């Protein structure tokens, strides 16, 4: 029985997944945005992050749960995100394809 290949990731999806991976149990909206800002030179647009989270959840690459209401958020709850196994597989596949593309070439030689 052939295994279904992990879904391909868009650029922002891959970044958001990596941010969730890096943050571990702390992964939620604002820390993800801060993490992306720290590692990206471009400004991070809020809608693109939420759209990516929506798509990743729809593709079942991540799961989410609501936390407790917090005063700093005006009494609103925080949504925590965690990687599913399929999400890890998708990241692995993405890294694999990048590595294999890089194999045997170097920017310095040309």
């Amino acid at each position, binding site marked *: 029985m052939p295994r279904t290949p992990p879904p391909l990731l868009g650029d922002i999806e891959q970044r958001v997944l990596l941010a969730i991976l890096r943050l571990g149990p702390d992964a939620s*909206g*604002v820390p993800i*945005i801060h993490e992306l800002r720290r590692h990206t030179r471009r400004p991070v647009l*809020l809608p693109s992050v939420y*759209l990516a989270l*929506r798509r990743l959840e*729809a593709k079942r690459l991540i799961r989410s749960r609501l936390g407790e209401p917090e005063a700093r*958020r*005006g009494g*609103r709850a925080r949504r925590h995100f965690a990687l599913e196994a399929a999400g890890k597989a998708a990241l692995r596949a993405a890294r694999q394809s990048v590595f294999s593309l890089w194999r045997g070439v170097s920017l310095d030689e040309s």
Partner: protein
Amino acid sequence: MTGPTRVTPPLAALWLLSRALPPDERDAVVGDVVELFADRVDGRRRFNRTWCWLQTAMLLLGLTGAGTARLPPDPFRRSFVMRIGGRFTLTFKQSARRLRYEWRYALGVIVILGVGIGPATAMLSIVQRVLLQPLAYQDPDRLGIVRINLGQIQNHPGLSPGEVIDLRHTQGLFAGVEAENRQYEVTLKTDDALVPLSAVSITTGMLPMLGVVPVLGRSFSEGDVKDQPDAVLLDYGTWRSRFGADPGLVGRRIVLSGNPVEVVGVLPAGFRLMTGRAVPKPIDVYMPMRVTSFRNFWGFPTLVRLAPGEPFDRVNATLPGLAASLVKAYPDAYSGARLQFLISPLKDDMVKTTRPALDAAIVGVLLLLAIAMANATALVIARLRTRERDFAIRLAVGAGRGSLVADVFMESALLSACGAILGAALGALGLEAARRLIPHTVPRWDDITLGGGVVLYAAALALAGLFTCGLLPLWKASRHVPWHALQSGSTRSGQADSALSRLLLAGAQIALTVVLAFSAIQLVRSATRLSEVDLGFDPNVLTFRTSIDFRKFKTPAEGTDLFERIRDRLRALPGIEAVGAISHLPLSGAVLTDAWTTDLSKQPGWDLSTANYYATVPGYFGSMKIPFRQGRDFSDVEDRTAQHVVIVDESLARAAFPGVADVTGRILRLGWGLPDSRIVGVVGHVRGIEVAREVRPQIYAPEGLFTLDQNFTVRASGDPARLIGPIQAAVKELNTGRAVAGFAMLTDNVAAATSTLRSVTGLVSILAGSAGLLSAMGLYAVIAYLLHARRRATAIRSALGATPSQLVRLHMRTTVRVLLVALPVGVGLAAAGAPLFASLTFGVAERDPASLIAAALTAVVASLAGTYVPVRQAAAIDPILALRSE
């Protein structure tokens, strides 16, 4: 947390966001925004609330629009706001995408709207500031200015002090009658320099009547009125620039023109005294003035505040009685002449001279705006016709009418928003350019600002654009039955009504272009005529002022001596060809008027003959290159000893001694109790009041006879600017105790005197050029569209052997027909509107036929240019290709 004053995010934004987002995302996203906001506040970042609104807008557009549906989609859970937001976003995106695809069309409409809106916004900002905004005084609509007619003197803005008192004594008409004297120069002595300041004296009730309270210190009181005033109020700007905004200055003494005076207060920032001048000159120092009962010198501009409930016309109706009684009571002062007081609202009086120019400019920009709107509407209609098939298909497959309307409306809204932004930018640039080009002859010109007003007007005009560009075509489109469009096929529209309405629009533009072109041509010709007027003098002289303190001298002759020493000292400077001096420079706006007669048995009367009176010195006529017709200049001895001699201009010589070849040696009697004077010379007439016409003849007396502050006139051989330093040093060496001020070229006066006409000419020429361009573009669009619709017919003609030149002639016929209708209409409108410009034109007939023909020709050239390109393209059609595409 930093305490109870903590900045909170805008609640409306959060509310909007939580309404629009699905419930399971609501808390997470809104909470994130609140948290990020708090992070920003803690990080002391700025514009946090703006940031919050921006994020809300982006999230609303990004998370609620099309293509963002979550999997699986659940339409029943979407809230109302979300659905509307989604629809809005979708329509917005689709319209933006369509316009980006058809960018030539979009750019065309935007540029046309911008060109129309730009000048209109700039002009409306000016009008709002100059004509509509009330003056910055308390209850300004009750303030009026008194002008008098006295015999030959008409509409004069100054009263004699006795009349000020008379007006004060009228019962129940006025809540206040206050006067100022003319502005004069004083010299502030600081530790290391003499600084020229401008001063004006006002009656003590003036500031309370205007409702102006000093920001520091107090207003004048009756106790401040003395023979030698020792209390002054300072202008706010002067207090800041000259005294470093020192709050301790109030109560201290400063030395003005050699006299120590006490600074009793500082007036509020932006205060200006507007009495009888369209553009008040900046005044540094205000002094208290005493009202005497003199009745021989009409030099005191007077403001009144009407008593509560008294309208201007009732007050004006009461004044003739007062005037008549005064003439009877003071026969010597008025010599039986007709005296009349006219009180008009202060603001009306101020904008009186500018109003015709502004009116003309407003008509011009509104015409241009109308042309632009007509053009943009025609383009939008043409494009809607090409989309008819698209609409029909959408209706057929079940699209709601509302969605089509929203579609068209959104496109128009986007186009007009972009047009408004372009228009606001053009308007701002135009205003800035106008501010640099036009000298300060327009009231409140300095206060006209860019920004809020311009943008507001642009938005309002864009809304108008939206209605014409969006709703009119929609109304037209909604009358079409969809299957009709489907049947007819997209390439064969050209229905008669649409073609006709578009030709009518094009014709209207051509007619309006004729109107604008006519105005522009008339004004350009006037400006040219005005620049060719012989002024009677050569204005290429450097001028400056200085005063001397006559109280220091035992006799006036000592002051005259000092002036003479200054002139001798200046003549010795290298690069100076001639030096003169005069009490009032030509075209400076300042003037003294006196009555005269040749009948030595009676006093000169105001009703008979008046002349402008100047006190001058030997050498003045030479320095100004004013020619002598008869006789000679004053001699130094005549000047110094104040002999009773005068020089008159040729107009006065003709009027006083008709038919006499040589008037030198004749005797002239003057008013003000001056001694009878012998004429020693006759000079050419000088256009001293207006460039356009001779106002009054001129009398020159030696300065020693009637000592006044002097304006020096210096003719230089090289660059006059290089002389300023040496002149200042030379005057300082003579230790007059007074500063030298107001260095300027007399050419500036000439430029200012003709500036209204020149600026209106420039503006209207630009408008006419834009109008010509726009109507050429409009005609181009219409003709191109019509020819496209008739492609088939053209192709068949071509296949049957018609030559391109025959086809060009054929198609040009449409334009010629439009012109045949539009030109007479345009010429008729131009002729009918000509009286609007009549007060601005000079030396050309009101409905000059040559200008009318030239305007019509301009429109013909623009129309033919707009037509020729598409016609040429259509004539070069390949019949095979054209017919195959059907």
